[in-house]
């Protein structure tokens, strides 16, 4: 009989940052190792550690100097995120041999839906073992893989045996395995929730699954139902198709000005600068046109305000974005204090050209061609080669390379193409 149940893997790279550092420094395999942020000042916190450091009681998040007290011969290395991203991508390329349903959960974890891959590559456990061996032999780091019929139990499984192991939580055995675990092991059950649950007499995942759902909803709201379903193995959320998780929802930029902004002209100036950079990034990303503009305002007293609104028609033109931002600002801000920081983001993208009844299509096209030409010049000669005359009124602002300085790529961004 064909097997219609889902087969989900959750693959977790063991001590990931520390494992990559041990590839770079093989001599550190034999010593307790901590990967730290901000290494120079020696006040960095431990971001990751190897097994030896773990055995010495070092925990993630503690300051290095404190960790060093627990373990005298603890060695620290600074974190090198670009390398971790490269290794993570190489591992994902291995996953991609078996399925195109790959949903990253942070840099070191992924869910894989191999339901449809079993005819080609064997059972879920067999695929998990093939992946585990491939990662070890090709990359030199190890994974723990959980195999189950939903994402929640798959994740639970990958935590049960570490490192370099495969654990199956099946429909036949989850009552004997998953249900015996403390409820805090379940994804999304944090300390606060675990405390609330313990008051209700829920200690294990099995307790949670067997608890009256109405009681959970009363105590925890809609999370109560969700967690109850998760514990009972009734999670049917899909694994995203690879690439989808990178779908960009908005493009934005914000800036804290070197001086407080006191007038509408000042604000308009900064909106123009920001809109220029947003339009340029929109064009680069190939997302098409944006239908919505959102602004954020921070005043001198650090109060935050925000407002979003629809553009008259989808656009990728900097001036139209700035105009819309300005309109939103006028509707939002009452000038209680001078403005310290502004942000502009656009979203609600559409590829298609939209004909407008009143809009001047030619004028619009002209604006876009102008933007494109300016963008080309800037790519070639730097962001400051062409500037809006309005902006030249404030020399210091004009000198800021707003686009060059303010791009932060999302995690997992494929910078190397």
């Amino acid at each position: 009989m064909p097997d219609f149940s889902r087969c989900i893997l959750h693959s977790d790279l063991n001590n990931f940052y520390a494992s990559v550092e041990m590839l770079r420094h093989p001599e550190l395999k034999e010593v307790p190792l901590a990967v730290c942020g901000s290494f120079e000042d020696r006040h960095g916190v431990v971001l990751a550690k190897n097994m030896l450091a773990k055995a010495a009681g070092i925990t993630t998040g503690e300051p290095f100097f404190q960790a060093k007290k627990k373990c005298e011969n603890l060695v620290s290395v600074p974190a090198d995120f670009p390398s971790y991203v490269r290794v993570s991508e190489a591992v994902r390329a291995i996953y991609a041999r078996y399925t195109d349903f790959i949903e990253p959960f942070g840099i070191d974890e992924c869910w894989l839906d191999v339901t449809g891959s079993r005819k080609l590559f064997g059972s879920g456990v067999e695929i998990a073992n093939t992946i585990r061996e491939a990662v070890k032999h090709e990359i030199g780091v190890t994974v723990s893989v959980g195999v189950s019929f939903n994402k929640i139990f798959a994740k639970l499984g990958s935590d049960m045996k570490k490192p370099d192991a495969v654990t199956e939580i099946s429909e036949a055995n989850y009552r004997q395995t998953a249900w015996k675990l403390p409820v805090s092991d379940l994804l999304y059950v944090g300390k606060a929730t675990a405390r609330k649950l313990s008051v209700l007499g829920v200690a294990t995942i099995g307790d949670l699954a067997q608890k009256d759902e109405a009681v959970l909803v009363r105590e925890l709201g809609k999370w109560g139902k969700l967690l109850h379903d998760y514990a009972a193995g009734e999670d049917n959320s899909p694994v995203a198709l690879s690439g989808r998780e990178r779908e960009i929802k908005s493009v934005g930029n914000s800036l804290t000005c070197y001086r407080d902004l006191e007038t509408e002209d000042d604000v308009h100036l900064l909106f123009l600068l920001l809109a220029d950079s947003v339009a340029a990034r929109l064009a680069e990303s190939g997302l098409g046109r944006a239908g919505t503009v959102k602004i954020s305002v921070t005043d001198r007293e650090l109060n935050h305000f925000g407002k979003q609104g629809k553009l008259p028609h989808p656009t990728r033109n900097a001036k139209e974005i700035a105009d819309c931002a300005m309109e939103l600002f006028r509707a939002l801000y009452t000038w209680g204090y001078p403005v310290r920081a502004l942000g502009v983001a656009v979203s609600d993208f559409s590829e298609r050209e939209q004909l407008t009844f009143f809009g001047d299509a030619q004028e619009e096209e002209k604006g876009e061609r102008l933007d494109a030409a300016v963008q080309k010049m800037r790519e070639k000669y730097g962001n400051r080669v062409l500037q809006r005359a309005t902006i030249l009124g404030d020399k210091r602002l004009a000198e800021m390379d707003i686009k060059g300085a303010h791009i932060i790529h999302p995690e997992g961004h494929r910078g190397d193409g």
Partner: protein
Amino acid sequence: MRPIELKWQDGEVYLIDRVRFAERAPARVSAILPIRYTCLIGGREKYLYFEPEKMQWFVEVASA
């Protein structure tokens, strides 16, 4: 890309007769994501590694 010869630190040059495999494999020395070339040199199999990130070739040397 195919390695042709290997120049040792004493200046001696070894011709690489054939590359049997090129595959991703970790080295026992410092390297992240190197490609391992299984080479036939003088009738014997030797590993030659290339680390794309650093554009660097290297071999593992048995420690004394």
